[in-house]
């Protein structure tokens, strides 16, 4: 998975120090291979071993036999595919519709919808899931209680359709972001040529716009599929009580049972890994094919907007309903739940007895405070380490001809195919055996997070570097500057928007991460998402609501501030 947009002509900017070059690349390969390939190798070995540790390898096919032939395994596969496929389709349909309305139609209040569509990206999955539990719980859900009262039936969240809906709603912003980029970078003259050939708007859409978008659409659906497949929040919080098992939740159960069965867990993880890799290989095929449709020129066009006429307010209503379901309703239900003593449906008495007790409980709770500190530490360290590693790796792969750079790029991209929980399984297996004192500490989480977010860093850095004309760096060497002054005074300042974007992204997603840490944490390394997960097991729903409200407010504010900071640096290029 090499990064795209790299020009073929590469330069040795620091020509005389070939040996230093090779040493740096070799070191980088060693570090990345240790972070990415090594745990996977250990995982696959573990799936074939009946021994009690990494060193105690005794070959067996027992675990795979069980995973692949067990009666329940077909159900597991069917559930996983249905859940991931269904969510991908739901998210794609919603995200694309919103993207089209915002980018290509004259629907009113476009900027507002743009912002609203992005908010769920910031809200942690676990919070979104719990909010929807408040809404769709069969007995006490806000939506179900009146339904049951009026029609005698309810829409249970604890089913595959329920899971698909909740996860799809949460993934829609990703589809929105990717599809609106596709709409924006599509050359409008392609559609104008169709119009000039006397095609009406409907024919233009059907014969030109949609076929051009098809490869992009396929790639977006695949990305959504893989990401949903590896998601843990909905499968654990809704799937487990509803007895709808998918791979991620099954792996979690295999660890929770006593004694934990590492071999079985590793076998399940290997299967999940295989499906995920398969999905990404398919994605790669689709996107390679897409290059022939040279619609993405990197230029942002000002597209002609479709005049909706009398459908304008229908579209507006659709967007409003989305805003209500994805943002307003979940937040309101959390806010309400955070202000009452014991969770019940809204009633006059409840509103009379609103309390801030949950907030004071959260702020005084030692475990939660520790979780806040741990989460911040983790986010800071992970973001900084990822940016540091990937800026150098991206520079080597894009700007030099050093042997091994292709491998380096590949290694940094491998984790994109590793589901968080699979990474967790491999690291548990690895560091519970190799006692170097990080098992159960925050360090194992740092390793997990850094590994998991390497691809995002590499993507941002490679993209940023590819946009910096190599002559800008060459001009610096021609002006007499050596490698380091060039890197420090020319490359880094020009790369700042990409650096900042990557840092902010990794920082935010680290604060929300659940699946990579769920198998790795201990009482001294609890993080926010895990704290919520734990409180849910002890039924402290009103406290969770209070913590969730605080997290949402802080995260949204943080993103707004960081975006503004980042935006200011963009003008330099």
């Amino acid at each position, binding site marked *: 998975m090499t990064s795209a947009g790299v*020009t*073929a*002509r590469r*330069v*040795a*900017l*620091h*020509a*005389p120090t070939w040996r230093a070059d090779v040493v740096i690349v070799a070191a980088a390969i060693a570090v990345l291979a240790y972070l990415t390939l090594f745990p996977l190798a250990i995982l696959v070995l573990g799936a074939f071993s009946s021994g009690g540790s990494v060193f105690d390898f005794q070959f067996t096919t027992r675990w795979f036999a069980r995973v692949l032939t067990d009666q329940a395994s077909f159900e597991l596969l069917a559930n996983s595919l249905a859940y991931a496929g269904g969510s991908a389709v739901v998210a794609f349909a919603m995200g694309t519709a919103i993207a089209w309305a915002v980018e290509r139609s004259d629907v009113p209040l476009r900027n507002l919808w743009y912002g609203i569509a992005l908010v769920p990206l910031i809200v942690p999955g676990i919070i979104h899931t719990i909010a929807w539990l408040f809404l769709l719980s069969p007995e006490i859900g806000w939506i179900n209680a009146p339904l049951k009262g009026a029609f005698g039936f309810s829409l249970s969240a604890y089913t595959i359709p329920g899971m698909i809906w909740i996860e799809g709603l949460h993934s829609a912003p990703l589809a929105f972001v990717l599809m609106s980029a596709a709409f924006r970078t599509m050359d409008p003259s392609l559609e104008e040529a169709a119009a000039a050939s006397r095609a009406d708007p409907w024919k233009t859409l059907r014969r030109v716009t949609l076929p051009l978008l098809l490869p992009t659409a396929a790639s977006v659906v695949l990305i959504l599929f893989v990401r949903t497949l590896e998601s843990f929040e909905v499968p654990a919080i809704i799937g487990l009580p509803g007895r709808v098992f998918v791979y991620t939740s099954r792996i979690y159960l295999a660890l929770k049972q006593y004694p934990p069965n590492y071999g079985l867990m590793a076998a399940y993880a290997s299967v999940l890994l295989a499906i995920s890799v398969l999905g990404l290989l398919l994605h790669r095929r689709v996107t390679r094919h897409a290059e022939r449709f040279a619609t993405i020129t990197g230029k942002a066009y000002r597209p002609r907007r479709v005049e909706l006429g009398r459908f304008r307010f229908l579209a507006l209503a659709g967007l409003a309903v989305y805003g209500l379901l994805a943002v307003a309703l979940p937040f309101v239900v959390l806010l309400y739940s955070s202000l009452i003593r014991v969770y019940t449906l809204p009633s006059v008495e409840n509103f009379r007895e609103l309390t801030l007790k949950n907030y004071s409980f959260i702020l005084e709770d030692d475990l939660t405070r520790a979780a806040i500190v741990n989460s911040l530490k983790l986010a800071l360290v992970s973001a900084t380490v990822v940016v540091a590693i990937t800026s150098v790796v991206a520079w080597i792969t894009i700007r030099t001809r050093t042997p091994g750079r292709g491998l380096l790029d590949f290694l940094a991209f491998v984790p994109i195919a590793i589901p968080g929980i699979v990474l967790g399984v491999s690291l548990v297996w690895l560091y519970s055996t190799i006692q170097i004192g990080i098992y159960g500490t925050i360090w194992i989480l740092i390793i997990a997070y850094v590994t998991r977010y390497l691809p995002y860093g590499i993507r941002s850095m490679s993209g940023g570097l590819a946009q910096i*004309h190599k*002559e*800008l760096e*060459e*001009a*610096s*060497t*021609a*002006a*007499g*500057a*050596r490698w380091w*002054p060039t890197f420090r*005074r*020319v490359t880094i*300042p*020009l790369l*700042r928007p990409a650096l900042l974007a990557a840092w902010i992204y990794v920082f935010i997603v680290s604060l929300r991460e659940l699946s990579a840490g769920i198998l790795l944490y201990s009482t001294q390394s609890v993080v926010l998402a895990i704290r919520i997960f734990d409180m849910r097991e002890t039924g402290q729903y009103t406290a969770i609501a209070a913590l969730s409200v605080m997290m949402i407010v802080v995260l949204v504010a943080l993103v707004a501030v960081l975006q503004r900071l980042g935006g200011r640096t963009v003008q*330099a*290029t």
Partner: protein
Amino acid sequence: MLEVERLRKTYTTDRGGVHAVEDVSFTVEDGRFYTLLGPSGCGKTTTLRCLAGLERPEGGVIRLDGRVLSGEGRFVPTYSRDIGMVFQSYAIWPHMSVFQNVAFPLEVSQDRPSKEEIARLVKEALALVGLEGLERRPAPQLSGGQQQRLALARALVRKPRLLLLDEPLSNLDAKLRQRMRIELRELQRRLGITTVYVTHDQAEALFLSHRVAVMQSGRIVQEGRPRELYASPASPFVADFVGDATFVPGEVVDGGVRALGGVVRCALSEALVPGAKALLVLRPERLLVHAGATGGPNEFAGTLRVAAFLGDHLDCVVEIGDTVMRARAHPAAELRRDQKVWVELPPDHCLAIPDDGWRPRALTRTFEQDTE
């Protein structure tokens, strides 16, 4: 003095093709303006990048003032070479002001001048290119022409021994390009800085250079003063690349070439003996179209296919037998399409060279389509 001996380098172009610079040798005397001219992919930019040290040659030697920059087991890195370079994209650092851009080469140098000295040198360099007073301006706010000047000031501020220019004018619009051409020429002549220039624009090369090397497929195919290249091209490729030309194949006879249904009196290049295959090089700007016969030597009758008014002349296309050639007529001449005309080929301006089989893309094709 810059000496390049048997330079070799294989490289991949942006489009993925593999090319090579093979056995390129040339010498640039002190203070001279030397141009590498050729179509894209001919190796001219790669040669320049080898001079800069941005590419590592596979063979050959590069010497500047007798000191080896590359070859003989040595390779001086770019940052240690006494050069100034202007890139095709200008490569103006967008995160710096005009002043910071020009000051950079001084600030990173091993014996960094004092602050006051840097300020003075920057001012001097900016004055040289006519950008004085813009020191504080952020670089991205400059116009294309100003960025070009800034790039030049940055290349000159260290007072390098060698100035390297990689198609610096190609991103400017036509009018501005003409003006910058004059300024660049004057600046180089005034400073007397040894300069190597790369371009695919023959007019630019002729205008600016003391000497021009024409490159084709990684080799220098002819080198000389602009006048020599124009008047006595060594091959059809050079004749076509330096100036416009119509090629007419024929057989050498005594004092001329049998072609166009007769004998064309012309200068014969040395290798040509009677009986040999030759190619007539006819420069359109030298051929005169008349409405009637004048009775002079080298006059051939044909049919006028195109006559377009271009201000100081009529640009004509004439068909003589199955040969189609471009020529000129007096702007006041009354000529109509498809009428019979006589083309005068002044013997002094006709040249025959050995026919190596190379041909430019044919004019005939487009002409037929135009008249339909």
